[in-house]
């Protein structure tokens, strides 16, 4: 019925409009909207869009954007490429010639410096000679001073690497050198006849001193060249890279763990505290400028070999139990011996004192009768064969129940040596203070390079992973690192190696901290399908009506605008 009435009425209304498509299905048109209603609808739509644009969009932008602090990418990359700093190692060597006249000694220093410069083939590492005259005071003080090089860096002058004392001695045909093992002093004895004449350009004494110095620092020079260039060519490279490989990575703090392992019930105690205090603490103190150390000790009874390890074999000739060299890597029962305690935050160096069972004592290594070995980057092992005791009536032999400090002496001397090796101390020259100084320079070079390369890694990471957040702490760590790197570089240039190492340590720590910042976790990759899947259910139902109404409103506005223009024209 209603449709019929509609059909009837439609021609009337349509007659007023264009007569283009007169169809019977056309419906009755609603009454025209009042301008107020149009206005209200416009306001409602505008309000919705205002909320979306001024509130929704900024909130979405804010909550989904990733904070990325500004990093000096170019500086960081320059450090990593070695463009900012060419590390140099000018070693200052004091020369004292108490038995010579001043012009003679000046001439000697000058000619020796010439000879040295001629011998040197690695520009970054060079020796600078300096004449000092108050020898007596210097030698007494110099040795003390240089033992703890980095301990007192108050003075601005360069560290003295070595003091050369040139002394005349009767009854010598050729010059002779003697390195004092416990100080940083090299004594050169020369026959009085060889005092350099100011006219001679190349006196034999100068050549001799230059060659001695060159020899003294050849290993350090090769090591630094190896580290800086990273190439594996050269005479000593195989030896040096082997040494670098077995030494631990640098850490600010090392944890030393001393363990007594024995397969039986004895010995069950050892004078460890006294032994550490007596034999080890001097060395640790000497290492003070380079690293810190913490120590723990343990005694483990009934510690058996792993069932996989080949057992020791009795050797009739030696009347001893022997371990084969190739089986030593299986000696440590890593599965069952409680090693590597997770104490502190430094890497652990393990030192194992193994007391064999009385039935297998003495125990030695088959090939060279050694009783100790180093496990690279891990620690050292020492086989202690204490004198056995007869026990009671049965006559069976047992290990002593207690190991005294004196019997721990060889073990701890060996551990000290192993510690030196594991920390990467150069093997020459034959003076411990000099070797430690040398280690300071080597470590400074290593840390400078490693912190620089970490900066480079961080810069590349920042560029390659745009979705990773970079908090402000990283930026501040980076700037600390860069400033300490440049101060390391300038300290090195001025020959203050202790200070350089101290700066490099800070730079390295900060560089590590910035790279391993905990909030920089790149677990934010979403494929595009995932984004669509997340946003579509949310935005579809809201977005479609909003967009459609916006379009309708725009259409109406455009139509109105056109109509107005037509009416005005």
């Amino acid at each position, binding site marked *: 019925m209603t449709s019929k009435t509609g059909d009837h009425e439609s021609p009337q209304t349509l007659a007023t409009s264009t007569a283009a498509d007169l169809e019977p299905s056309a419906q009755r048109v609603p009454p025209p909207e009042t301008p107020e209603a149009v206005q209200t609808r416009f306001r409602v739509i505008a309000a919705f869009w205002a909320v979306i644009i001024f509130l929704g969009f900024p909130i979405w932008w804010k909550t989904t954007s990733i904070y990325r602090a500004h990093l000096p990418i170019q500086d960081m990359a320059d450090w990593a490429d070695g463009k900012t700093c060419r590390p140099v190692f000018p070693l200052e060597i004091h020369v004292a010639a108490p038995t010579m006249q001043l012009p003679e000694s000046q001439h000697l220093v000058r000619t020796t410096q010439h000879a040295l410069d001629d011998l040197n083939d690695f520009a970054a590492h060079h020796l600078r000679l300096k004449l000092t005259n108050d020898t007596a005071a210097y030698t007494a003080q110099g040795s003390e001073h240089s033992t703890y090089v980095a301990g007192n860096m108050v003075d601005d002058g360069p560290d003295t690497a070595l003091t050369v004392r040139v002394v005349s001695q009767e009854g010598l045909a050729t010059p002779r050198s003697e390195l004092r093992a416990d100080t940083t002093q090299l004594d050169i004895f020369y026959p009085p006849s060889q005092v350099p004449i100011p006219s001679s350009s190349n006196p034999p004494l100068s050549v001799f001193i230059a060659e001695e110095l060159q020899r003294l620092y050849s290993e350090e020079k090769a090591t630094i060249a190896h580290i800086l260039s990273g190439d594996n060519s050269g005479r000593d490279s195989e030896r040096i890279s082997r040494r670098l*490989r077995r030494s631990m990575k640098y850490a600010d703090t090392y944890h030393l763990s001393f363990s007594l392992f024995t397969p039986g019930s004895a010995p069950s105690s050892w004078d460890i505290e006294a032994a550490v205090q007596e034999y080890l603490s001097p060395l640790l103190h000497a290492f003070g400028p380079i690293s810190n150390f913490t120590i723990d000790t343990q005694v483990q009874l009934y510690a058996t070999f792993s069932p996989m390890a080949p057992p020791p074999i009795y050797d009739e000739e030696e009347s001893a139990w022997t371990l084969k060299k190739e089986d030593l890597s299986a000696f440590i029962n890593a599965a069952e011996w409680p090693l590597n305690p*997770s104490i502190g935050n430094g890497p652990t160096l393990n030192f194992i004192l193994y007391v064999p069972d009385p039935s297998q004592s003495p125990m030695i290594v088959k090939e060279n009768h050694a009783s100790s070995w180093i496990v690279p980057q891990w620690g050292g092992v020492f086989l202690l064969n204490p004198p056995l005791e007869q026990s009671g009536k049965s006559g069976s032999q047992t290990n002593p129940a207690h190991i005294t400090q004196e019997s721990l002496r060889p073990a701890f001397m060996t551990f000290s*040596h192993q510690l030196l090796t594991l920390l990467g101390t150069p093997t020459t020259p034959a003076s411990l203070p000099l070797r430690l100084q040398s280690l300071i320079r080597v470590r400074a070079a290593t840390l400078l390079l490693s912190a620089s390369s970490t900066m480079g890694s961080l810069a590349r990471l920042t560029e390659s992973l745009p979705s990773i957040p970079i908090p402000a702490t990283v930026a501040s760590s980076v700037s600390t690192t860069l400033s300490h790197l440049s101060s390391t570089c300038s300290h090195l240039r001025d020959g203050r190696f202790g200070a350089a190492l101290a700066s490099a340590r800070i730079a390295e720590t900060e560089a590590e901290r910035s790279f391993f910042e905990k909030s920089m976790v790149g677990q934010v990759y979403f494929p595009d399908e995932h984004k669509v899947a997340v946003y579509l259910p949310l935005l579809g139902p809201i977005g479609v009506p909003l967009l459609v109404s916006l379009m309708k409103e725009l259409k109406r506005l455009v139509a109105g605008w056109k109509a107005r223009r037509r009416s005005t024209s």
Partner: protein
Amino acid sequence: MALLLRLLQALALLLFVGAATAEHTSNWAVLVSTSRFWFNYRHLANVLSLYRTVKRLGIPDSQIILMLPDDMACNPRNAFPGTVYSNADRAVDLYGDNIEVDYRGYEVTVENFIRLLTDRLDEDVPRSKRLGSDAGSNVLVYMTGHGGDQFLKFQDAEEIGAWDLADAFGQMWEKKRYHELLFMIDTCQANTMYTHFYSPNIVATGSSELDQSSYSHHADNDVGVAVIDRWTYYVLEFLETQVTSANSKLTLGDLFDSYDMSKIHSQPGVRWDLFPGGEQEGRLRTVVDFFGNVQNVEIENANSTDPGSLKEDLAEIARLVEKWRKRDEEYSAIIGNSSQSQGEDTHSSTVQLKSKKPVGPTKMAEDSSWGKRLVGLSVVGACTAVWVAGSILGQSA
């Protein structure tokens, strides 16, 4: 002549590079199972079998990171409590009595896994839960669970994408956290997981191609579920029967050649292109380069007198000790004279090795418990008063 020289040079360089890259100084293993619940027993068994193998070949517990999202040994449905088996013959209890699980239960998440690889962990996370590898470390990463095209599900709750994994390895390479890396994965469509890797020195292998499932090997009727996956089963079979000692010379090539599609029922894949020298060079790596802990110990010759040898060092250290003893005596003499001057000097002369006193238990409770009770009582009282007053006022209104 010049050409010959050049050729020789190149050859020498090649040899040298070969020698230099072949060297690694430590081994690490990251073994991850990603699925939870009893019916995924086999995934935990897979990982525990691998754990047992790498431990047998010498990687110490401290260098194995084991992630187990569930505890099958103590599951109430386990007919053999306290044990996990990967074979129906139940010959080897994988749980044993010496096992160190580093990440357990709900700690096994995508985030923790990525943090582990990139070492972006809190400072107070112990070293046993960290991957402490460096530029000389060979790392074995083994993952198993349920996965799909370019993702691996973690615990039914989240998933790791192949991109994230690739980025994590990329960051490891940037920070020199591995020397060479062997990535193994046993899951459905496993080979898709390593398609996005871009950092060098990685060998990757997976159990099945895109749109292929990985199947379980067999079920134990008494345990009631499948106990191991096929691919892992045959990898382990190779490792257990052929790589019998840490000195084994078998290569990765041998391992990958042992894949038999008729047994595995899916197409295992290997990716060589990231490895320098490609397949040719990669095949020569020994299995124990990744599964074992090859350490070349250095014996000290007690009789040699080279610089830096044991004997020389001992003499130097003995001198140092002697010097310190003298110094100590001098200082004690000085202190004897003037007892006040024992300030900094004594500190510098003796390294402080204080024995730490064990921290005893302390009572956590505060002493003012009575005060707190009083406060609580008055609050309750006030509330009651308000309620009573309210109800009276309401009645009167």
